[in-house]
């Protein structure tokens, strides 16, 4: 083995050890690295109790209710398995829509109601022009056979 080969073997070995260490560390911190918990995880008791945490999911269609003061809103976050009712008082981000992703930070009370202090919209990875979106919406409407 020439010194040059030895150096390359050292570099390769070092990188492999480093990758293994990183994998183990990330694995150990798995639960701390999640940005939010899904309603199913909350129902299973995985979310921290008595502490603020984030929930993430879709805003259920038709669940958004605005209070007369114009700032307080109530909606349901769902992952299509479990639901969590959320109350929030503040300005909602532009991308906040029914049927779209949302991440809310706050606390869960004993009755399973979530009071949010911050609401973030989670954008999905789909980028499409309004015409395409319109076509998708029309298809949904046609499926529901609602005549205007």
């Amino acid at each position: 083995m020439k010194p040059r080969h030895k150096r390359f073997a050292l570099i390769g070995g070092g990188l492999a050890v480093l990758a293994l260490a990183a994998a183990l560390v990330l694995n150990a911190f798995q639960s701390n690295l999640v940005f939010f918990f899904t309603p199913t995880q909350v129902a299973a008791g995985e979310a921290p109790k008595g502490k603020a945490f984030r929930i993430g999911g879709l805003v259920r269609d038709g669940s958004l209710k605005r209070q007369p003061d114009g700032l307080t809103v109530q909606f349901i976050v769902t992952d299509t398995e479990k639901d969590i009712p959320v109350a929030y008082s503040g300005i909602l981000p532009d991308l906040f829509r029914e049927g779209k992703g949302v991440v809310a930070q706050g606390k869960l009370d004993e009755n399973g109601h979530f009071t949010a202090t911050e609401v973030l919209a989670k954008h999905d990875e789909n980028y499409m022009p309004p015409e395409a979106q319109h076509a998708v919406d029309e298809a949904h409407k046609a499926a529901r056979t609602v005549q205007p």
Partner: protein
Amino acid sequence: MRLKAGSGFLFGPFSLCSAGVLSVPLPGAPVTKLIELAPLDWRPLGSGAGAAFERLQRALARHGPQGRTGLGNRTHYMNNRIINWFKFASPQTFYPLAGRMIPWFWALAAAFGLAGLYISFFVAPTDAQQGEGYRIIFIHVPASWMSMFIYLVMAFWAALGLGFNTRLSGMMASALAPTGALMAFLSLWTGALWGKPMWGAWWVWDARLTSELILFFLYLGFIALQSAIDDSRRADKAGAVLALVGVVNIPIIYFSVKWWNTLHQGASVSLTRSPSMAQTMLWGMLLMALAFWMYSIAVSLIRVRAIILERERHAGWVEALPEINGRMDAA
């Protein structure tokens, strides 16, 4: 410039690396032996290269079975390529080569950039959800890609420098770092500008954003470490170790949106499935990515030329350069 077009295309992503790399397989023992004899900082310009080549040919005629068969021509071609690739590992030969390549990469960057900007602003449709705000992706995504890719190239050079002890490798790594840092910064900054209206927050500590921030700090750390050490060879070594350690962060950035729940959306474009994005938007983004890529190469080559001049300023060939010579006469 005698890099073979075919290999350049094949190693497309590494076109920046291809000049001066010693990664061609060495066919046959005699060639390897010759390479071994050569000093690590090979300076084979002029008679040196010619003599080495002749010795190589003679050695092949003596030892190589192909030398006497019909394959002779092909071996000749292969060896010719090895010589040329080795040649560019020396700062003295790489300096003029880089000088000749820079205008081409500028031209490509301008062409891709103009086409990309035109599509981004005038052809790509408005997004149904985000309106016009989504157009930040034409900067944000290419910058993020380049920030990760440049780091990989930098680490690749760092590894070569550690292994082969070549001077040029370290110079390439330090020439790439500022551009990489710029790309990481652009990625974070444009992301923040987009995040405020769309998500409702400038910044969140989710896995994607945090790991990209760490990448930015890795670049800064690399630059700081290298400039803190006066001896350039030791600075290269220290920087190379740092660059290689930081490489684990790259897959973490890339896969963070898959491995964990993040606020950042998943990848719209990936190698394994069709992109979830309108066709023209995708074209604009890819053209902009190419423009960023070409820009990065051009600007890194300019920087590596400056580094070569600075570190080799006592070498005879630098003083003989017309741009140096002329200036000294004028002074």
